[in-house]
């Protein structure tokens, strides 16, 4: 079993490390999606280092919690979380998107243990997560299912088909996490296809809804704990994040959805992240 990190400062350092990994990976790959992946570093650090019951040395442990990544294009953050928790060697991260690599541009389940599903086309993940959670519930298992989704992918009707089914089966063992970063390829979500009032939509579908600052690791962990406590309904955590968070030239800009940093930009980003790391180090435990 993976030994959880409960110290918020240590988790912040992990998130910083994940951000640095993502910058280096995308720079080396020369393509990919930085903004969403970097914006999710805090969520993934909280999940993989604290919330999840899992065992990177025994990745197929049947009682593990399942992570279904639905918006596959943010996979560099998943790969970094997997490597940093010991699923595979960190130096493999720089093979992202390259010929012969296990780290496909969008995740492939067959590539390695720890990747629970293949994804790429949006809207698939919640259905898979619901299927898993129904089995876990009917067989009275303890393991939970976390489905990590984007806000833009909620345009896909399949998400709502799955949301209805999750409520029908009162899947208290299912937590969906929506990366509410307000961007999608063609611009801001509320311009491309308005999602608001998003919380009300899920409430009306029968879900427990928690809004949280997706960069506040402590609050995000608390939200996950609450989702466990609400056992008669599925929970959606709407994690409000800033795309490209912590890298000043990337924050909030839709243009960074699908463009990798070049060498100079990557160096600037790493410099900035290093400064932040030093600041975190100085924080009280």
């Amino acid at each position, binding site marked *: 079993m993976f030994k959880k990190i409960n110290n918020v400062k240590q988790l912040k350092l992990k998130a910083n490390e994940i951000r640095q990994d993502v910058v280096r990976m995308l720079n080396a790959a020369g393509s990919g999606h930085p903004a969403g992946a970097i914006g999710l570093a805090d969520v993934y650090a909280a999940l993989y280092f604290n919330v999840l019951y899992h065992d990177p040395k025994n990745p197929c442990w049947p009682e593990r919690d399942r992570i279904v990544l639905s918006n596959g294009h943010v996979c560099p953050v998943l790969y970094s979380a997997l490597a940093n928790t010991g699923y595979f060697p960190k130096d493999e991260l720089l093979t992202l998107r390259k010929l012969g690599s296990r780290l496909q541009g969008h995740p*492939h389940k*067959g590539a390695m243990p720890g990747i629970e599903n*293949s994804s790429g*086309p949006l809207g*698939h993940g*919640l259905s*898979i997560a*619901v*299927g898993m959670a129904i089995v876990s519930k009917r067989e009275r298992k303890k393991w939970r299912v976390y489905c990590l989704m984007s806000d833009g992918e909620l345009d896909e009707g399949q998400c709502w088909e799955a949301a209805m089914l999750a409520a029908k089966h009162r899947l208290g063992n299912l937590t969906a996490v929506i990366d509410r970063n307000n961007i999608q390829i063609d611009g801001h979500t509320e311009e491309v296809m308005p999602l608001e009032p998003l919380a009300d939509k899920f409430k009306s579908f029968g879900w427990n809804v928690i809004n949280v600052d997706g960069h506040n690791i402590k609050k995000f962990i608390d939200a996950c704990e609450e989702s466990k406590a609400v056992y008669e309904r599925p929970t959606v955590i709407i994690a409000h994040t800033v795309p490209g968070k912590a890298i000043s030239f990337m924050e909030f800009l839709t243009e960074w959805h699908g463009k990798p940093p070049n060498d100079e930009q990557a160096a600037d980003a790493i410099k900035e992240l290093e400064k932040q790391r030093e600041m975190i180090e100085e924080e009280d435990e």
Partner: protein
Amino acid sequence: MKEMHLIENILEPAEKKASREGVGNALVEEGEKNENIWAVSADVAESTRVQKFNEKFPKRFVQVGVAEQNMAGVAAGISSVGKIAVMSAYAVFSPGRNWDQIRVSICYNNSNVKMHGSHSGLNVGPDGASHQALEDIAITRVLPNMIVISPADRIEANKAMKAALAHNGPVYIRTSREKTPTFTTDKTPFEIGKANVYRDGKDVTIIAHGLQVYQSLLAAEELAKEGIDAAVIDCHTIKPIDKETIIEYAKKTGLVVTAEEHQVNGGLGSAVAEVLAERYPTPIKIHGIYDRFCESGGGWELLKKYKLDATGIKEIVKEAMGMKK
């Protein structure tokens, strides 16, 4: 030729039943033995005959409503935690509506999911063109990891579903609504990927799947009266296709006619043509629906109109005889 153990007189079948019955019964029979088998349905549980499974094993049944995309994902999720998931709907909706989910959530994941598409082909009749699945084989056989089976009658459908459940990976099985003669028996062999030769012949080979296999046997009886000796092959597995049997009979007869309730683009006919073009170029007539939508009508009325009954297949074969070198 291997003994196929068909009924004694194929002109006098004792039973007429729909192939979907065979699938439904296989699920219950195997469900009794194997607690890992789960079923998912998209609101047509009675029609697809998966309802019987639900009645017996409600804890292993999931009803998703009219949501085929979700059904495919849920089935993938169930299978990913160690179960064998069977999903059922009409073929026009699944794989028609949920091809992307089948491609990525099921085939790319190599999920252990069995997809039952019922009410396939023209014989669904009065519901009209929107409900006549004539493209399902084309869109499933193109997917990596996928196996595609179209059984010829109730008993073969039963064996096909059992074989699918025993195979670890995605399998698509298409069945029909219309009651048709049961002409194979429990002793008739069934192996995924191995075509069954039901009638030997030296002049022409008719290769068919589903409902057209029996019709082709009847056509061959009539052709024999006119001096044309036709072999008939039940190519129940369209992918992986039995190349060796196809080539053997192309060599033996020098002319191949395929017959199926499917568009001529991308179905069994295309699959056979791919084999022959590469390995043993042979004149081939690809018979089916010629790139069009059809219409409402009785199942057998439509089969007659589009020459997919015995009389129609006989005519097509006679015309094709002129193609022989």
